[in-house]
């Protein structure tokens, strides 16, 4: 398959691994931000090809994982309402709120539907004028344009029965928060290629300079990730701290201007709580006042209060690269993908879930 096979060759991987071995002179700790990359690293066994000096830390770039419990509880509350058709991407359905998940709401008779595009949810609203269609708008910069487009379309169509439950998050403020946190041990970042496809990488330049930390915009195939690590280690070995673009086949410095315009038309930056990490200033998106009529939180009176995370869960430390999943006492025992205790076990892209699936019998 074009764009896939040429980035998955054993030969290419071996050559890059050999180059990395001869380049690396001391230990380096590099974080891949994106859960898609974490998943690829464990699925293909990329970590096994790296020299022992290099430690990959698995970052908070999994939208399913970092969506706070309160938002999930709100989704569940909405999905229980008889007038609501609650729509979502598939992987949010199994994420447990404080008491249940969306799959169990569906089993109990709630109208919960998987959609593949938020525009499908707009169509559902058109076809079901007597129902309220709510779409769970979760994700990073990558999904913001499509979610924004749904609201934009809904307003053009003058729909009164469509709204978004928004829980959007942004990558650069999270990187900054990680770098500011006491005890931070991250020396370089692989930034998420698809996020930068939309937003470009202008926002990363001041972060790399201020914190003297290299950031390499990286793709998702094995060869991409190995190249990303190579470029990052090369900078570290040479004492440079720049933003480099490994994923140039998809990412332009300015990103996708049309998508960025749409996102800014519909959304504004806001503080956002990250599950496992806490609130990060200016790290989220919410609907602008001019689109308030499409904001499910403002449209429906939701009475979900603050909720407590499971005390045994160390996902906050894992998301900051301070612990590895198997260093948690609950890992694989009280906490499994079927009964997750916290953020990093809930989605297939979460670090704990990826370790559970691919590494359980190795660790």
């Amino acid at each position, binding site marked *: 398959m074009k764009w*896939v096979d040429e980035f998955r060759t054993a030969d290419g991987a071996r050559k890059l691994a050999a180059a990395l071995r001869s380049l690396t002179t001391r230990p380096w700790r590099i974080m891949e931000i994106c859960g898609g990359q974490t998943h690829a690293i464990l699925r293909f066994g990329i970590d096994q090809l790296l020299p022992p000096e290099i430690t990959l830390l698995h970052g908070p770039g999994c939208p399913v994982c970092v969506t706070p419990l309160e938002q999930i509880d709100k989704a569940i509350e909405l999905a229980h309402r008889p007038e609501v058709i609650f729509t979502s991407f598939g992987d949010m359905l199994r994420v447990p709120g404080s008491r249940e998940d969306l799959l169990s709401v569906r089993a109990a008779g709630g109208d919960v539907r998987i959609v*593949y595009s938020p525009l499908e949810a707009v169509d559902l609203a058109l076809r079901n004028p007597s129902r309220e269609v709510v779409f769970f708008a979760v994700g990073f910069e*990558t999904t913001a344009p499509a979610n924004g487009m749904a609201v934009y379309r809904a307003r053009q169509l003058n729909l009164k029965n469509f709204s978004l439950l928004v829980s959007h998050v942004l990558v650069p403020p999270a990187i900054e928060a990680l770098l500011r946190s006491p005890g931070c041990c991250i020396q370089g970042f692989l930034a998420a290629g698809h996020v930068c496809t939309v937003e470009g990488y202008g926002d990363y330049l001041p972060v790399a300079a201020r914190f003297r930390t290299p950031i390499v915009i990286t793709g998702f195939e094995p060869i991409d990730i190995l190249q990303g690590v190579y470029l990052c280690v090369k900078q570290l070995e040479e004492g440079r701290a720049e933003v480099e673009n490994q994923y140039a086949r998809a990412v332009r410095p300015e990103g996708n201007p049309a998508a960025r315009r749409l996102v800014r038309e519909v959304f504004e930056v806001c503080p956002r709580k990250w599950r496992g990490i806490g609130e990060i200033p200016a790290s989220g998106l919410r609907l602008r006042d001019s689109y308030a009529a499409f904001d499910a939180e403002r449209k429906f009176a939701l009475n979900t209060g603050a909720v407590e995370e499971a005390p045994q869960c160390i996902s906050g430390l894992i998301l900051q690269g301070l612990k590895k999943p198997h260093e948690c006492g609950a890992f694989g025992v009280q906490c499994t993908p079927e009964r997750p205790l916290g953020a990093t076990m809930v*989605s297939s892209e979460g670090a704990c879930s990826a370790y559970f699936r*691919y590494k359980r019998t190795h660790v």
Partner: protein
Amino acid sequence: MHDLIRKMFATAFGGQAETDSAVLRSAGVRLAFTTDSFVVRPLFFPGGDIGSLAVHGTVNDLAMAGATPHALSAGYILEEGLPMETLWRVVSSMAQAARSAGVAIVTGDTKVVERGKCDGVYINTAGVGFFEHDQQVGPEAIRAGDAIIVSGDLGRHGMAIMASREGLEFESAIESDSASVAAPVLEMFRRGIHVHCLRDLTRGGLASALVELAASSGHEFVVEETSIGVREDVRAACEILGFDPLYVANEGRFVAFVPAEQAGAAIEILREFEVSAGAARIGSVQNGGAKVLLRSAIGATRVVDMLSGEQLPRIC
């Protein structure tokens, strides 16, 4: 599902939970007996329908025991208001599939339930088969050194159902691989292949079948990712949705464990049949713990695990 079967049904009813058919002995005759229910939505999908699927599923379960399928029952549960022409299409397709598979449908039952109580038609089939050989087929017969053979490309049935259920449009329609695999399986026995174990790759796909068999045989399986056939369109659909084709369901594919020295002959036999023309060796059985190791495309190794729940399409 596996937990449910083990903890609930196997506990209550006793007996072996993890084989496709029961093997019974009576008055010196060995026969295989199995049953399966079909609740697929939509009823008609590219490459098949619930009627043909209900034959293939049960015929294949008998074949996986090494038995020659002989006769089936057909139990229909119909939703009130189901158009007669829809039912006729299902029934004709079922009859056609049974003829092609060489089995007779010899008994049956029909019930009607209120509108809204089922998706049009549910079908249960049970089947009996006889043995034309005296080989013992099952996970306990798997030996270190055995070759692991898969009968063709993976993932077509699951993705065909997914695409037609969810209205996903790809450049070409992915057709289900739903088919009877009895003929190539029985031909291996006839031509003297010592088939140690067979398993169809239905729910949970190749990965789940291998993990189950590794657990029940107590052996370690090592498979090569690059030797596992997945058609280009199926791979693309899986990439888009974030699915792993190793876990996607098939309805006309199986895995066979045969002695390494017979692997070539077994593959040649399988390739004589259209349904298993894509047969290939994907790995071998080793001494070691009960687990499945997969050598990835880039040459690293990882553990293959059972999937918990269904695969759900990913956000990004």
